């Protein structure tokens, strides 16, 4: 699984980091996601947290990309 964040849609609500702090981090003190890279690999034990954080995003800026079977 990968997640893709659209940097331009991120509004800094920080909901992802609130509900899934083990995966989503606050960068630069405010930006609610990793700002350097748009696409991130999700370790298997973090998949549930990644999905939980994505569902919370008020701008739906975080997309889950499932691995191809």
């Amino acid at each position, binding site marked *: 699984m990968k997640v893709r964040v659209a940097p331009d849609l991120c509004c800094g*609500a920080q909901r992802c980091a609130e509900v899934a702090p083990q995966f989503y981090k606050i960068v630069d003190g405010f930006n609610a996601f990793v700002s350097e890279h748009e696409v991130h690999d999700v370790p298997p034990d973090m998949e549930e947290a990644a999905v939980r954080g994505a569902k919370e995003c*008020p701008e739906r800026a975080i997309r889950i990309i499932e691995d191809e079977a």
Partner: protein
Amino acid sequence: MSRYAEILKNEDPRIAEVFDVEAETEREGYLVIEDPFPSLAKLMAKAPVQKGMLGELLGYGDQGGFHFHVPGQLTYTAFSFEAVSRALIENQTFSSEVYDDFDNNAQLSNTILHTVGSRHRSMRNAIQPFFTPDVAESWWNDKIIAETVETLISKIEVKTSADLFLELCARMPVHVVSAGFGIDPDEIVTFRIALLGGGHREGEDRVDGLKTSHDILDRVIDARRRKPENDIISKFVQAEITLDDGSTRPFTNEEIINHCRLIVLAGGGTTWRQLGITLFALLNNPDQLEAAKADRSLLPKVILESARWHATDLIFPRRVEKDVNLAGVDIPQGAMLHMCLGSANRDPARWENPDKFDISRPIQRALAFGGGPHSCLGQHVSRQEMVVALNAVFDRLPNVRWDTSKPPARLTGGLFTRGPSALPVVFG
């Protein structure tokens, strides 16, 4: 049919009185401005952040007539997208606690609107689960939005003309949010009037309003503490706030009451005007109306473009908590900041031809629903209401168009709480 729908079928003469943008603006003591956007664009072109209150910079002097206007207080105004977005996100520096200064009766104190940092976060975390995108599209939609819109549109479709602002926009959101919370159907309009009377006005009106809204909510909360139902007040009663040390506590009655006031006021007070602005923009652009009608997957985009083009509330306040440089301007600790969403959402550095309502634009985040930790809690409920309402208008009012026998509709109001004067349409 639920009792909520039965009540909604009745005419209520108070609706026309309460839901009148211009009258509401004047009643609250604020100036009516027909079209602030040309002046806002000129100001933004001068500098992204300027010293002065927004009303003052617009040339109305420093004696008030606008929300968040405090004569004599050192105030700066942020105009550009970048400056306003940063102020929204950096909430510890640009603090929401400024709202306490305007809430003379503490009717919204200790809510997610007024607090910052961990106090805000702990409450927002407890409330957010009732308002996620998924819950808006399932629980809110299935429990109340679909039925509300069906009830309203079936009253309208049997006629050949209507004022959609009054008959659809005004009645839907206050009903949806009040019903969602579990407020008695007979008391919805009374509750709304009490809330409006409670915040800003002086004298007996205000005290009566505060007491009425308090008593209505207190009764519901007590009943739900005894026997929870499937509504938001029951969810509040059962929710737990997790504190910094990991311990939990329930919401107090006072906290639930103030959050109900806040959310019913915000949810019932913005969505009706934003839906009105969306219909206004579509009726003025028949080609875009036809495009949206033909492809309903465009509706979420239509709503975001309407909110960008003309949000209902063009200004929000913050208090500056430490000396800071915002877009090249030094602002000292203690100053107030006016964040002008109206100009930020039409910033030519971000949007091409920004004054044009254009649903074919690429989606880019605008600031109509705010941003940062305080980004609009109810935005997905609001967007879902608007999607369902627009679908109903397209499906049930064939060939809907302006009623040219009536005075042309205008967008009006102050800098806060703007919306159409009316939406007179014919169909069939």
